């Protein structure tokens, strides 16, 4: 068949399909979507015919472009986020954490051991902290947690707007740290290891120092509540980063790029859970931890309950499968 005949015969069809495409690209939906796949496959056949018969570049290129546009409308990756957020929170996320327990364990060990270890060290030999944190910052921190006149000793009439400021600041700061800890895992995991240990040392140093100077009560009662979510989130972000790095270090039978791609798909889900944790943490930090009215005992109790909640959630949630997955 000559090209001009071919074009004349199918022109109406192509124009109609082009109209459908424009509608889809503009509004994301069409009135009669039923015939779209059929029309698309027919267009694919026309393209194949045009190539096989050696029709001119103009025809082939424009058919190709239409097929590409159709392909992009017809085929989508099913989003594993968003659509089933509830299932993700209730079951998929803790399941994923348990599935990746090796990385979670490694990251938790690095983070919590360096935190606890350095806290004890600083408590026993207080001068150590000055190796890590400059003296001005230490004294600034100290004045913040001063039981008599610290910023945290805010009275009950503190404006709600101030909570907002802190909420915003915590989200910004903490999620930033978590993202950094995760992303730097791409450097063969070294970045994640560095940030896990570094953050562990910093937090440990502050905790040890403040306990040593006798501000333990204000400090611990302040941090215990949101710490449950915040610290575990950093450890989980580190675990996601380690997973990325490990995919590069030991890709197994896959090429490194492919292994990285597969690992990244899992770790991005971990990061979504981490963001959720940090959102909760920022909320608790701004609205509960900063309250001064409850006695420290209440805060310790609530804090312990929150820690327990995190552990129970990660260990037990989603163990039993419910009907529609």
């Amino acid at each position, binding site marked *: 068949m000559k090209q001009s005949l071919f074009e004349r015969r199918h022109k109406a069809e192509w124009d109609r399909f082009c109209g459908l495409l424009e509608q889809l690209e503009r509004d994301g939906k069409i009135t009669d979507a039923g015939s779209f796949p059929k029309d698309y496959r027919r267009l694919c056949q026309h393209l194949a015919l045009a190539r096989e018969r050696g029709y001119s570049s*103009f025809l082939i290129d424009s058919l190709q472009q239409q097929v590409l546009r159709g392909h992009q409308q017809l085929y989508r990756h099913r989003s594993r986020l968003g659509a089933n957020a509830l299932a993700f929170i209730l079951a998929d996320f803790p399941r994923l954490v348990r599935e990746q327990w090796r990385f979670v364990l490694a990251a938790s060990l690095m983070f919590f051991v360096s935190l606890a270890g350095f806290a004890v060290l600083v408590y026993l030999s207080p001068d150590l902290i000055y190796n890590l944190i400059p003296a001005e910052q230490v004294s600034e921190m100290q004045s913040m947690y001063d039981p008599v006149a610290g910023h945290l000793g805010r009275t009950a009439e503190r404006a709600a707007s101030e909570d907002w400021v802190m909420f915003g600041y915590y989200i910004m700061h903490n999620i930033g740290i978590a993202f950094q800890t995760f992303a730097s895992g791409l450097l063969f995991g070294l*970045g994640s290891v560095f940030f896990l240990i570094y953050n562990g040392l910093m937090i440990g140093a502050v905790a040890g120092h403040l306990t040593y100077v006798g501000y333990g009560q204000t400090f611990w009662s302040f941090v215990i509540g949101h710490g449950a979510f915040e610290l575990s989130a950093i450890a989980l972000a580190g675990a996601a980063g380690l997973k990325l790095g490990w995919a590069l270090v030991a890709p197994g039978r896959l090429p490194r*790029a492919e292994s990285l791609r597969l690992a990244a798909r899992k770790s991005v889900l971990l990061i979504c859970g981490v963001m959720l944790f940090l959102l909760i943490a920022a909320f608790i930090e701004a609205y509960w931890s900063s309250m001064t009215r409850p006695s420290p005992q209440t805060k310790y109790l609530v804090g312990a309950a929150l820690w327990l909640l995190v552990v129970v959630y990660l260990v037990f949630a989603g163990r039993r499968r419910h009907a529609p997955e």
Partner: protein
Amino acid sequence: MLETTALPRNAPLVPPLDTRYQVETPEGVDLPLRPAGLMVRALAFAIDLALRGLVLGVLFIALAMLGKLGAGLGSILLFGVSWWYMVLFEVLNQGRSPGKQWMGLRVVHDDGTPVGWSASLLRNLLRVVDLLPFGYFLGAISCLQHPHFKRLGDIAAGTLVIYREHSHTRPELPEAQPRRTTFALTLSEQRAILGFAERQGELSRARADELAAILAQPLHVPAAQAVTELNGIARGLLGPT
């Protein structure tokens, strides 16, 4: 695209000169995508960066009037804009941030499908690593050495930055008397002749003559008439319009 000459056995395939990236669809059709290189992507990023700076600047001035509440909102805003600007635009605007749209680029998955939430989040989170140790150094290195110009975030997320297709306008074929060849043409010869006729509007008269003269001898015509002869064959191939 249409290679008809067989390569000798075990000869390595010659990599094509252009940077096209072929995607095979489930329908068995090969779709060529054109990955975008470092320079145009850097420009798109610069536009995005400037735009973000502008938006943040304006909003901060507005928020500064709100006092403390404004400061809180401001830091949430800064967070949102610095981490989510790219992701939101890429997912909700067919893989195009304003800078990419300006430069005619878009982000797609490796298989040519529109970029989704997880891939977009991933490629933009890993931007931090591409930035290391300063000014996109790692990203640029990775982009320059990768056959499809991927930075590290693209490799991990399985995404590709491509040029958006422009719509084609039908080229005007030069007038000539349709004729048939006395011998059978192979597909690539047929495509080449049609291509010559379609592209003649872009060529100077002298260049068209020069190109056509190459074929004067096999067509058994004087060199001066080769262009007309080729146009005639192209018309004949195309059929009556």
